[in-house]
């Protein structure tokens, strides 16, 4: 995407180019339609030329079992028993949520290593990444992963390379059931509304859209059967937000600490200018000579002994 389209940049205190306005995009993942086939996982590794290590089957369908620097999206499977005793298989495609207010970008110390485009996509520029892992600390969804190979952080790009030339993300392109759709955020909300009406008509009265306001909304949204209990879907956070600890650390603490350190140094400087150095005086020197003369003659000085050991 053009540099003109970068509207937020990590570790940058001045505004990023913000004259151009393009539509915000979003990917909508309908968990109620997903069959867990993992075609999207494959499409992701194909398009991005990623080949994760082949792992072991751990007895459930989750494979790989977690996001890695080479697996930017994974399907998470949860078996949920409803109050009526029915079994539901809740399958969630996990990956970067592309927050409107990204915690990774807030925490990252390297200028421009994390950028947000004006269409809402949050992208990492590995060339500028220093590998500190602050993005992991800042992320409310536990998404970024640092590669063992190169110590750079990786995550879903929402196929920013494809989107910038008018294509939809690889996972969307490949999904055989239409569970993943992509478009402007407004269109996706409308699409979700229609899906939610349908679900409610079929008895899922808590069906709803997951677009959490705590992070300003996300550019990856879910349609959930149980929008009142997102935790059912492999611990999807109920009300995600940038942690107040991270907010303090990479928010107020930065300017305050800088100001206070500068003020301390300035206080020293002006103390020297106004009050001046603390020097040994002529009288002090005379007193020392007197002490020495006394000690040289006879009596041991009456100075008393130090209270120190």
């Amino acid at each position, binding site marked *: 995407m053009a540099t003109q389209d970068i509207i937020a940049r990590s*570790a*940058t*205190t001045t505004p990023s180019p913000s004259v151009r306005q393009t539509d915000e995009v979003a990917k909508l993942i309908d968990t109620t339609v997903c069959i867990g086939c993992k075609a999207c996982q494959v499409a992701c590794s194909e398009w991005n030329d990623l080949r994760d290590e082949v792992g072991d089957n751990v007895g459930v369908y989750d494979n790989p079992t977690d996001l890695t620097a080479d697996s930017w999206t994974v399907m998470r499977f949860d078996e949920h028993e409803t109050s009526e005793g029915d079994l539901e298989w809740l399958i969630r495609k996990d990956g970067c949520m592309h927050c409107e207010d990204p915690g990774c970008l807030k*925490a990252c*110390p*390297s*200028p421009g290593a994390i950028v947000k485009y004006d269409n809402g996509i949050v992208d990492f520029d590995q060339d*500028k990444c*220093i*590998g*500190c*892992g*602050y993005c*992991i*600390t800042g992320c409310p969804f536990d998404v970024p992963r*640092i590669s063992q190979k190169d*110590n750079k952080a990786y995550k879903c790009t929402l196929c920013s390379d494809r989107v910038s030339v008018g294509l939809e993300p690889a996972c969307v392109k490949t999904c055989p059931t239409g569970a993943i759709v992509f478009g402007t955020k407004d269109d996706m909300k409308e699409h979700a509304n229609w899906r939610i009406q349908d679900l409610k008509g079929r008895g899922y009265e808590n069906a709803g859209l997951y677009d959490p306001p705590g992070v300003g909304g996300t550019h990856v949204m879910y349609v959930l059967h149980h929008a009142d209990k997102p935790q059912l879907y492999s611990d999807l956070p109920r009300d995600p937000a940038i*942690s107040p*600890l*991270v907010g*303090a*650390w990479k928010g107020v*603490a*930065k*300017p305050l*600490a*800088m100001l*206070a*350190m500068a003020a*301390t*140094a300035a206080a*020293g400087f002006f*103390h*020297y200018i106004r*009050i*001046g*150095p*603390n*020097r*040994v*005086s002529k009288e*002090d*020197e005379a*007193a*020392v000579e007197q*002490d*020495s*003369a006394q*000690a*040289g*003659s006879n009596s*041991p*000085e009456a*100075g*008393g*002994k*130090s*209270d*120190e*050991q």
Partner: protein
Amino acid sequence: MNSNQNQDLQRYNANERSNHWAVALLFVMAALSGLALFHPALFWMTNLFGGGPWTRILHPFIGVAMMLFFLGLAFRFAGRNRFKAHDRQWLSQWRDMISNREENLPRIGKYNAGQKLLFWVLVVSMLALLFSGIVIWREYFSGFFGIGVIRFASLLHAVAAFVLISSIIVHIYAAIWVKGSVGAMTSGKVSRAWARKHHALWYDEVRKNQR
């Protein structure tokens, strides 16, 4: 008259001085490399360490090395930094100190109450930096800790570094302000008049031991 009586007094021996400057140099490197990652305005300082990734790699090792030397220094100086009854009085008269009216203050030993306070603030903030630094050391250790602990440690590390750096600014200024102090850590010696004026009880003690 004993010729000894006019010579400068030994305040720090060669080992103490080397230890102090090892800590000081490593502190400057730890502080510059850490601050480079703290505020965007200081990110350029990563160039002093060979770029961003090198700064990230080196900083924790520099920090640990500084800690090891600091432990040595702390053990050497802890005994002399225990608070005594007269320290409270001294602290309550801090205005006399900063106004260069030292003669109004109680006679004190090798360290004044301000120096003792600094010593213990350094001990606490260094320990906080060590423990929090290990938690946020992504390459080797962060995997052992939960996200809440890592977030807390990140904030703690920044706060402790701020306290430490501010304290050291005060420490350096004090050395510039109180003339004759720097020699104590370079040649190891201070003049008798300096000792008598600033650390009267220590002055008495050293003279007594000389005879």
